């Protein structure tokens, strides 16, 4: 099967144009993380939050979690954007073009990852203004790799759902019953050590747990699992999600 790089590029280009034109969407997507960082981070900064490693302020603990949250929401929306294309009819224009579906999926993933990363980096820049400081450069870069892996994972995840759904009706269900639990169970806001066993077990099967923990390991030098473990789990999970996302998108009927 020949991948059409022109098609990948044009899908990416379209997403970039949409991204820079949707200024209200960009601002909107920054407001929520900013509230979390501002109210929770600054408000609880002086308090000892149980489970947070000694010597780590709550603000430092929270920033990787909020970056993870931004990436989770943004990338699942990117995957689910197939639903919008279906709703507004543009999906047909894409599907009737003489390029293979793999190229289209790659273009979507490229575009979705770029815009998700831009949002994540914007939130990171904001957190510097709030006093967040980074450690070593190599580890900072490894943190960016974790960001990309989180983006890949949930774009693939969104694609799977969007390809199985015919309309927007299931959209709210996905957000409330899947995305929000993934966020809370990941330990993005506080360590889950003191919660009931069931919750802790669930957090172990939440992939975002390892994404956020990886970011913490890289950026604040304190994590629950070794960075290498986080990296392996996230790599494997993102590849599986991308594969199934592409698979289901290819199998989906566009009308």
């Amino acid at each position, binding site marked *: 099967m020949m991948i059409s790089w022109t098609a990948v*590029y044009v899908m990416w280009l379209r997403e970039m144009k*949409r991204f820079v034109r949707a200024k209200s969407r960009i601002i909107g997507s920054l407001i929520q993380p900013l509230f979390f960082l501002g109210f929770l981070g600054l408000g609880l900064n002086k308090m000892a939050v149980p489970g947070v490693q000694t010597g780590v302020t709550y603000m430092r603990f929270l920033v990787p979690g909020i970056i993870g949250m931004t990436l989770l929401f943004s990338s699942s929306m990117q995957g689910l954007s197939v639903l919008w294309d279906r709703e507004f009819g543009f999906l047909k224009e894409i599907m*009737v073009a003489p390029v293979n579906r793999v190229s289209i999926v790659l273009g979507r993933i490229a575009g979705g990852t770029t815009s998700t990363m831009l949002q994540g980096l914007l939130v990171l820049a904001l957190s510097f203004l709030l006093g967040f400081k980074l450690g070593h450069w190599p580890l900072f870069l490894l943190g960016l790799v974790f960001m990309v892996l989180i983006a890949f994972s949930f774009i693939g995840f969104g694609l799977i759902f969007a390809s199985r759904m015919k309309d927007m009706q299931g959209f709210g269900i996905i957000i409330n019953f899947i995305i929000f639990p993934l966020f809370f169970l990941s330990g993005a806001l506080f360590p889950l050590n003191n919660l009931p066993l069931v919750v802790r077990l669930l957090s172990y099967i939440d992939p975002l747990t390892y994404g956020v923990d990886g970011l913490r390991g890289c950026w604040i030098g304190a994590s629950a699992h070794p960075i290498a473990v986080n990296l392996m789990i996230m790599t494997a999970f993102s590849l599986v999600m991308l594969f199934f996302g592409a698979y289901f998108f290819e199998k989906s*009927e566009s*009308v």
Partner: protein
Amino acid sequence: MDAIRVENLTKRFEDVTAVDGLTFAVPQGELFGLLGPNGAGKTTTINMLSTLLKPTSGRAEVAGFDVGRNRDDVRKSIGVVFQEPALDGKLTGRENLEFHAMMYGLGRDERKARIDEVLRLVDLTDKAAVLTEKYSGGMKRRLEIARGLIQWPKVLFLDEPTLGLDAQTRRHIWDYVKKLNKERRVTIILTTHYMEEADYLCDRIAIMDHGKFVALDTSPHLKDVLGGDVVSMEVEGDADAYVAELRTLDWIKKIGRHGEELNLTMEKGERRIPELITTAQANGLTVSCVHLRKPSLEDVFLHFTGRTIREEDVKVNMWHGPMAHGRR
């Protein structure tokens, strides 16, 4: 050579057979119409021919390629204008066309030239830099027709190209479509539930109902089925002798009498009116009113399906509205 060949094409959704064993062929360069009410299976047929839906059974070839096995070859040979707008509203008119041209693998120079050309064709050069979400319905349609032409398709599918447009815009689009077909020899498959549209544009018309063709011919031939024109006359006086005389004339195919009104079916009605009047006067009658009605496609549709297309529409919208919508 045939641009389209269809054999026994069938599409079943869970509980409904939307397209039921269609067999037909469309020669290259023809403007072929699919006429039928909502839910007749027109769009489903187009979706199968344009590779968006897989047929349940049967086969179809477009531009010589099988729609199941050679999807990419079919896609390269066709242009499609869908029933509902398929534009990205956050892109400008030109960007929508560029997206399309790149997807079809046109090089940079060719792209620019073709896009300028098709924009001129649909009179949208001035609006090319405007986001398409700001376009009116008619402008969107025109842009989509332009887009369908960028790659010089061998076959162009137009699914209800003038649905919901005002009369003037509709006229414009008809002219474009005709021009394309005549000047560029593009084979065009058009679906519509407007009688006058099918009548004005199409070389041949297939009347579709419940997933099947109930008739397929040129518009004049379809109308011939009805036996010709109807001349209605109102006469004053005792018409019995007159009617008896009319019955002896072999060119009158049918005589209907409602009080003072006579409905006479015949071919070339306009040439027979003087004779009818003379005969009436010879029988001592005064003709107060004569009315000639040419059969319309509407009458043809009524003849083949037993319903008018409008009452069918109302029924579909009332009872199956959401379902019909979901299946487009």
